[in-house]
């Protein structure tokens, strides 16, 4: 297995506030990494540095063989290989579900319109929303929106999927459908990095759990190890709070 993500000593500050204080992380192909930790610990910021939605001050990030931290790298080409799913879905409200999915691949010349539509319908089928292909996103529920957003990211055939708190903005009864889609994706062997507060998902699906605190990776390991035998006080505290709440 080759490392698909290789991060070395990444630092980032907003003014005098250092939010990433030296992050190292390697992710292997097919691995599902779940990042947990208190709010403000830097996990979302770190995820966003991986496809350069956030700048870094120093350190090196290589993903799918592209050096994201090098300003000479073609960031658009790099991003075509990275799927990103946002907390607030960010579907394009002026386009239909199908157009949301086909816009980028057709515009970028990856597929013809017909190919893109055929693939989109197939993916919508997979997330159980084929009948919604021609509606505008505003008519969908939160859970449906997020499943469309995942399908939209998959349409580009990414090598890795990044999820930034994908269920945090959902009503509780919608969470299950979205997590199911993500579980299926993991089963199919997709490399995934997921920032989430869904501890159940982490336990069940993650190959590795990474615990963030105060801009650093505090602890990481197999889910059963981290959840059952946390090594650090900070991890223990956090898990006590979220698991026994």
């Amino acid at each position, binding site marked *: 297995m080759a490392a698909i993500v290789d991060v070395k000593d990444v630092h980032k500050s907003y003014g005098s506030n250092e939010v990433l204080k030296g992050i190292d992380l390697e992710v292997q192909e097919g691995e599902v990494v779940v990042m947990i930790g208190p709010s403000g610990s830097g996990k979302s910021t770190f995820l966003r540095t991986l*496809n350069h*939605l956030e700048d870094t001050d120093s350190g090196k990030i290589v993903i799918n063989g592209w050096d994201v931290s090098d300003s000479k790298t073609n960031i*658009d*080409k790099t*991003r*075509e290989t*990275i*799927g*990103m799913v*946002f907390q*607030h879905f*960010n*579907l*394009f*409200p*002026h386009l239909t579900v199908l157009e949301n999915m086909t*816009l*980028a691949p057709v*515009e*970028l010349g990856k597929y013809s319109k017909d190919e893109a539509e055929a693939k989109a319908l197939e993916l919508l089928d997979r997330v159980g929303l084929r009948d919604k292909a021609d509606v505008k996103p505003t008519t969908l529920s939160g859970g449906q929106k997020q499943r469309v*957003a995942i399908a*939209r*990211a998959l349409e*580009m055939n990414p090598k890795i999927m990044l999820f930034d708190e994908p269920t945090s903005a959902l009503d509780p009864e919608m969470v299950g459908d979205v997590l199911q889609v993500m579980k299926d994706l993991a089963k199919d062997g997709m490399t995934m990095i997921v920032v989430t507060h869904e501890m159940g998902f982490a336990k069940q699906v993650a190959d590795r759990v990474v615990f963030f605190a105060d801009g650093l990776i505090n602890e990481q390991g197999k889910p059963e190890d981290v959840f059952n035998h946390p090594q650090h006080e900070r991890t223990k505290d956090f898990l006590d709070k979220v698991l026994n709440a």
Partner: protein
Amino acid sequence: MNKWLKSILTLIVLMFGMFVGGTTSFAADKPHYTIATDTTYPPFEFQDKDGEYRGIDMDMLKAISKEEGFTYTLKPMSFNAGVQAIQAGQVDGLLAGMSITPEREKSFDFSVPYYKTGVVIAVNGKDKDNKSLDDLKGKKVAVKTGTAGAQYAQSIAKEYDLKLSFFNDSNTMYNDVKVGNTVAAFEDQPVMAYAINQGTDMNIITKPVNTGGYGFGVKKGANAELLKSFDKGYDKLVKSGEYDKIVQNYLGDNSYNYKKNAANEAAAKPTIWNILKENKSALLDGLFKTIQLTLIGIILASIWGMLLAVMGVMPSKIMRGISTSIIYLFRGLPMLVLAFFIYIGLPNLTGSKIPAFTAGVITLVLNEGAYIASFVKGGFLSVDKGQLEAARSLGMPYGKAMRKVVMPQGIRLTIPSFINQFIITLKDTSILSAIGIIELTQTGTLIIARNLQGFRVWLIIGAMYLIVITLLTWLSNWMEKRIK
């Protein structure tokens, strides 16, 4: 990104090229001149009921042009605007009962004096208290901007403690005296005498002062050929007796009655219906010009405004800076100042004429464009930044992401503002009457100069604006629904 930038710059250059390259040239073998005159200055110039310019100046010019073999386009505007248009090189000559004064000779070359004149003071015909200049001490008097009368009034204002009110045409000035806002008007003797002779109820209370002659004027050092033709032609007219015939036609016994001919029906029964009937073609022409200005203005202003808005959200600091500065500059300038600057100021600097219509369109584009730019930019900025992030995360370059995702949403948010701006533009075109474009408002001014029916004419003009704006609003609302 560079391609995106380049294409925008090209478009900007093209837009300016369009305006600058828009001047037409006459390829006729006869020399052609643009000659300005006053809107109303009977008996020297006034519009008859068919909308044609008549009067001593006008008939004389026609005869001279025939004699000397040149053609001309007549540009009626307020006397003051005419003086400025000459200095800006926008027109070649000014024939508007202009007194030759030492002051004016500094910036004009004059023909031989063709009519004797002097400044007189006239009061309301019912006014029995003010019988001499001394009686006017400390009172408010009316003058016409830029005229010899105004100059004289200013020169004695201190001595007699006069408070001056400035007007752009004679009729408005007389009216001001008649309604009692001012006690007296300073006017050229022949014009005042003629107006009184024609039934204006006023009395001349002084002897003519600063006597001299009227001259045809061109910008100092320019158009020597035209001036020579004028002098030669005038000389021939005097010798052949035709000049006297022209003057007699307006001033002799049984002379051409300006008021009767100008507004005979309306004067008899000045109903709104009669005014409408009589001025139908003038009103429609004015309306057409207003709509033309509005449409061309709003379309070009939209393109220009959107370009500025796109520049205003670009990652390049220089582009954003340019956009912000242009918006700041043209939103801050009053439209009237901008119009005068482009029409009168710029040609002074560059030496090449800008037709009034083009100057008007440029004014609209720059002014309305700045407003459009700022609300479109606001529209772009109000699109959730997650939209751009999502598009970029899919691998779309910045330009594509903006064009396909952010801008369509931003524009949609601004549709109500566009409709609003459309209506504002229509109304703002009335400001362009100041640079001599005969649109709806200027049409109203010209009709009133003839028939003196201010209340009814402005009622008609106002109603016409309202009707057009109502139609435009319906059309816009219909389009808005279709887009949604």
